[in-house]
Each structure stands twice: as structure tokens, then as C-alpha cells.
């Protein structure tokens, strides 16, 4: 069979050149439009370029520092959003990721503390008595990932086997994990990590970790059985079950991966901030979901992609940095941020609808 003809088995005329544009393209256009608006406003109001002004400080046409912070500030929530994207594609939702970040950061950081600060015994040492200080960096990493694995696994077991709505399962985990975070040290922050732990989230490392994971999961979602089944479950769970997919086991896997990704974010976050706090990660779940939705995912499940989520994260980053750049009052920032989130999605919808869909 000629490759050209291999797309179908006859019938209607089919015009290859007019294939529908991938949905991600629309999101990308939204991103560029938002950047353009900030550039324009920059010239009008600030007399300065948003991205292309090197402020005389760097030898590049870009304001590299701004480019870096745009992505750096969303990299950690972005890591969470990778897991959340998978959960949403199954038709579920994960409200617990922010709390898992809090609990994991607290627990992992406790195993990454130094014995002495400025020559005094570490005043915040959680396991000073037990002597668990100055441990090799692998210990907090493994402990942290295990936390995420357990929390995500519980989510998955609840959703997969008890059939309760994911909203409730993960809401329960959200409340419980936040409780664990506060209980761990009775609300005290955990600080003074070892140098090797601090190195994890230093500089642009969070961005690198985010992008590597994004590429990995892009490939996984697209080219592996895992990805295919994730989409199938979200598209029609009954059909997936009747087709012989082990839906329950698969859901456990998806939620567990989401939990582990939240744990990765927690480790990077606490390392970057050199501290862990029980309030860390509050509302991250909403930001992560918003990134995914801006990236074109459907909360009904079955549709969406990692690429979209990454672009959604960038839109977030641009908005945050753009506001600071324009010196917008904090009050107006929030009001306008809400409008921009909505606007980005309206734009996306509008463009998608022009390629009119069947009702």
C-alpha cells in the first residue's frame, strides 16, 4: 500500500494539506500575543523593552535575567503540573499536590540538615538527638520521593479501587497531608540544609529538571502504552474497561507518578529556598491545574498534552514577570491576572472553534 494512501480506507475525498492544526499551536500564539502586549506596554509606559532590553548589564540583546526568572519561577509548579496533566487526562483531578509538596519538603529537609551552623549546633535540627545530620544527599532524596510515592499511591488506590470521585480522594489527601506537614515539627520551619542538598535547586537547576522531566513525559504520553491507556481511560472509562485495560491498576500508577512529581517539586523547592515550611505549596495545585487547562487540556479527560502544559506554564511566568516589569500595583495585578488567564483560554477556544466542531 502506498504510504500516501495509507491514511484511510477510501470513501470521501481527503485533503492531507488541510489537516487540523494541533491545539498547542493556539496556546503558543496566545503566549506570543501576551509577550507582544507586554513589549508594547513596555515601550509606551516604561520606555523600556520587556525581553530585549539588556539594561546595559549583559552582552546579549535579551534581558537574560528576565528570561531566566520567567521560567525559573514556574519551573517548580511546572514539575507538579506534569503530573497533574496526566491525572486530568484520565478525567480525574489532583487537589493534593500542593499539600504533598508541603509535607514532603518538611520530611525530606529534616534528613538534609547540617550539624553545625556558624560553629553552633544547628538550632533547627529535627533529628539532632538521633544524630541524623550531615547525611549524604541521597537520603533526603529517597525519603522525599518515598513520601510522594506513598501519598500519590493512596490517592490512586482510593480513586482506582473505591471508585470515589478523584476530587474527594485528593481533597482528603490535601487536608491530611497539610496536617502532616504541620505536625511534623509542630509548625516550625526546617532550615540549614547540607551543601549538596542546597545544590539541587541552585541556579537554573529547577529549570533543567523541569524541562528534562517534561521531555521525558512528553515521550511517555505519546509513545508508550502507559500514555495510550491514560488517554483511553479519560476518553471513556467504561470502554477502556471493556477493552480489557486494567483501569484500576493504571489509575494507581498515574496518581503515584503525580505524587512522585510533587515530591520532586518539593525537594527542588526546599533546596532552592534553603528551608522547608509547613505552609509551602499552598495553592500550587490550583496553579498547576490552571497551567494545564491554559495549555488546552480538557477537564472531562481524554484530551491535552504535556507540550500544552509547558506552554501554559510559560504563560504564567510571563504574566508574573510582566506585571513586575510594568510596576503594576499588587492590587491591580491580581485583578488583571484573573482576566489574562481567562483571556488566554478564550482566545484558544475561539481559534479552536473556528475549526468548527461537531456538536
Amino acid at each position, binding site marked *: *500500500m502506498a504510504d500516501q494512501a*495509507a*491514511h*484511510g*480506507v*477510501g*470513501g*470521501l*475525498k*481527503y485533503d492531507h494539506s488541510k489537516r487540523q492544526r494541533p491545539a498547542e499551536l493556539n496556546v503558543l500564539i496566545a503566549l506570543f500575543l501576551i509577550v507582544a502586549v507586554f513589549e508594547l506596554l513596555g515601550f509606551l509606559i516604561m520606555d523600556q523593552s520587556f525581553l530585549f532590553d539588556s539594561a546595559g548589564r549583559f552582552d546579549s540583546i535579551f534581558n537574560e535575567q528576565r528570561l531566566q526568572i520567567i521560567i525559573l519561577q514556574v519551573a517548580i509548579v511546572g514539575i507538579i503540573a506534569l503530573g497533574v496533566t496526566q491525572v486530568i487526562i484520565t478525567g480525574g483531578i489532583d487537589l493534593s499536590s500542593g499539600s504533598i509538596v508541603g509535607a514532603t519538603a518538611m520530611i525530606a529537609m529534616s534528613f538534609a540538615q547540617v550539624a553545625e551552623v556558624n560553629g553552633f549546633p544547628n538550632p533547627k535540627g529535627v533529628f539532632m538527638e538521633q544524630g541524623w545530620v550531615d547525611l549524604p544527599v541521597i537520603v533526603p532524596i529517597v525519603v522525599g520521593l518515598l513520601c510522594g510515592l506513598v501519598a500519590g499511591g493512596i490517592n490512586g488506590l482510593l480513586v482506582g479501587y473505591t471508585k470515589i470521585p478523584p476530587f474527594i480522594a485528593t481533597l482528603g489527601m490535601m487536608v491530611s497531608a497539610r496536617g502532616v506537614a504541620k505536625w511534623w515539627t509542630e509548625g516550625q520551619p526546617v532550615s540549614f540544609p547540607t551543601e549538596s542538598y542546597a545544590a539541587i535547586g541552585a541556579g537554573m537547576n529547577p529549570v533543567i529538571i523541569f524541562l528534562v522531566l517534561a521531555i521525558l513525559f512528553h515521550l*511517555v504520553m505519546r*509513545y*508508550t*502504552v*502507559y500514555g*495510550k*491507556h491514560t*488517554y*483511553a481511560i*479519560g*476518553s*471513556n472509562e*467504561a*470502554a*477502556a*474497561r*471493556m*477493552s*480489557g*485495560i*486494567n483501569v484500576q491498576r*493504571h489509575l494507581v*500508577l498515574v496518581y503515584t507518578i503525580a505524587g512522585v512529581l510533587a515530591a520532586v517539586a518539593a525537594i527542588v523547592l526546599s533546596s532552592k529556598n534553603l528551608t522547608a515550611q509547613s505552609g509551602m505549596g499552598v495553592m500550587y495545585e490550583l496553579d498547576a491545574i490552571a497551567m494545564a487547562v491554559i495549555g488546552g487540556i480538557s477537564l472531562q479527560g*481524554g*484530551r491535552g498534552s504535556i507540550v500544552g502544559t509547558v506552554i501554559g506554564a510559560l504563560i504564567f511566568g510571563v504574566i508574573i514577570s510582566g506585571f513586575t516589569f510594568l510596576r503594576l500595583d499588587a492590587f491591580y495585578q491580581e485583578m488583571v491576572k484573573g482576566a489574562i488567564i481567562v483571556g488566554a483560554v478564550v482566545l484558544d477556544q475561539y481559534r479552536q472553534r473556528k475549526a468548527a466542531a*461537531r456538536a
Partner: protein
Amino acid sequence: MSDVDISQDGHARPRDTHALGEVILRTEGLTKHYGGVHALEEADFEIRRGEHVAIMGDNGAGKSTFVRQITGVEQRTRGKIWFDGAYVDFEGPLHARHAGIETVFQTLALADHLDVPDNLFLGREKTKWNWLGPFRILDYRAMREDTLKALQKTGVKIPNVRNTIQNMSGGQRQCVAIARTATFHSKLTIMDEPTAALGVQETAQVENIIRTLKDQGEPLILISHNMRQVMDLVDRIVVFRRGRIVANLRKEETDGQDVVAYITGAKTQPAYADAAA
């Protein structure tokens, strides 16, 4: 008594008894109530290896309900099922399929957002690098080629199989579901109104597929409202009425008029007289 008949209550039921292992599927007293709706009552059913049996009956007579109980989609209210010589109690359709039952459900069971090859191979993808476990790599090319072959057997025309199922016409969807079943060998095939949405040509092709199954000796349960089709294809016709089996007819011993009489309630086989009361 055949070895699969291990009913303990000694309750006498009308049945043919067959030699050891010849029966591929048997149900005894299969019953399903939905709340107050008695959708299936005391169904005793049997199909032998290589046999093609049709189930007919009014809308809402309980035909699809019967299929859902056999394939483990739902848990039956009571009754016993033997498949391939063993007492079975499928927890879900996954188990039924592993045991060797392939089904085209009336609802089709397709994933709306996936394309045709994805749907055809759903749950048994062709893969490479299988040591990667759940993360093994999909062999898209092989699946697409096999898909085109399978679709050609059904005679359906689909301009672009990369299109998602939700954008397919009613008949195209049905053909995808049939192609999926026909692609894999099984011990028993069940088709619930497979040609309902099909055009003239496609129906003819699907009937050919069914004839091929017959030639290969694979047993089939066919649910259909199409009298001509049933008379053409099967060996035996079982009639459901109001949730009960009311007739079990060899094709040679009956005709369309007769079957309609059983469906409408004008006639009931003496053996099932109490059931139809």
C-alpha cells in the same frame, strides 16, 4: 449429565445434554434485577463449540442484559455460568476477555478521543521494548497497517483513520468495533446488533466475516432484529420475551413467521410455558 452440569439444587430444567466438553458456554437460572426491574429471569442457555446461535426479542426484552451478565460487565443477581468446561464468575470484562470471550457491545465501547488504530488495539497494543513494562513503546506503524487490513474486511470506508472516533459516522464506529473483535481469535464471539447502523454493502461484508467464523469453527452468539440475516447465518434461534427465554428453535425447524409469533407472544414453546406465564 455432562460434566459442566454441577447444579446442586436438583431443580429440573429443560435442556439438551451434550457430551463432555462440547458445550462452550452454559448458564443456569441466570437472573438480573435492576432495582424493581426484572430485566432477566432464570435464563438457561447453552451453546456448543462451532455453533452459531441468534438471540432475538423485542426491545427491552433483556438481550443485552444477558450479554452483560455473561461478560462480567455487571454482577448477576443470581444464577450459574460455565465457560469452556469450568464454573466462572468474571469480575469484569477484562477477565471474560482473558478467558477467551470477544464481544461487540451494543454501546460499542470505543474511546471517543482516540483514533481508529488506537481503538482497535486498545488493551492489547502492538509494542516494542516490552521489558519497559507499562512504559513499553507503541508500534504505531504495525498497528496502522493491521488496522487498514481489518477495516477492509468490514468493507467500511474511512477517509482518514487518524481521525478521532468521535468524528466518525455511526456506521464507521460500528465497523471499528466489529473489526476489533474480528482481528483477534477467541473461544466465543458475541455480537450485540452488529449491523444495526450499517449500510447495505457493509452489512454484507460483516455477514461474510460471520460466515468465516463459522467455517473456522468459532462459536458465535448473534443478537439481531434482522430476520433475514438471522435465517441466513445461524444454526439456532433463542427468543427472549419480557426477560425470559420463551423459545429455542433450530433454524431448519422454523421460519420467520414462526419466530415472530414467539417474539410477540402469540406462541410459547411448551417447555418454557411456566416461564412465560
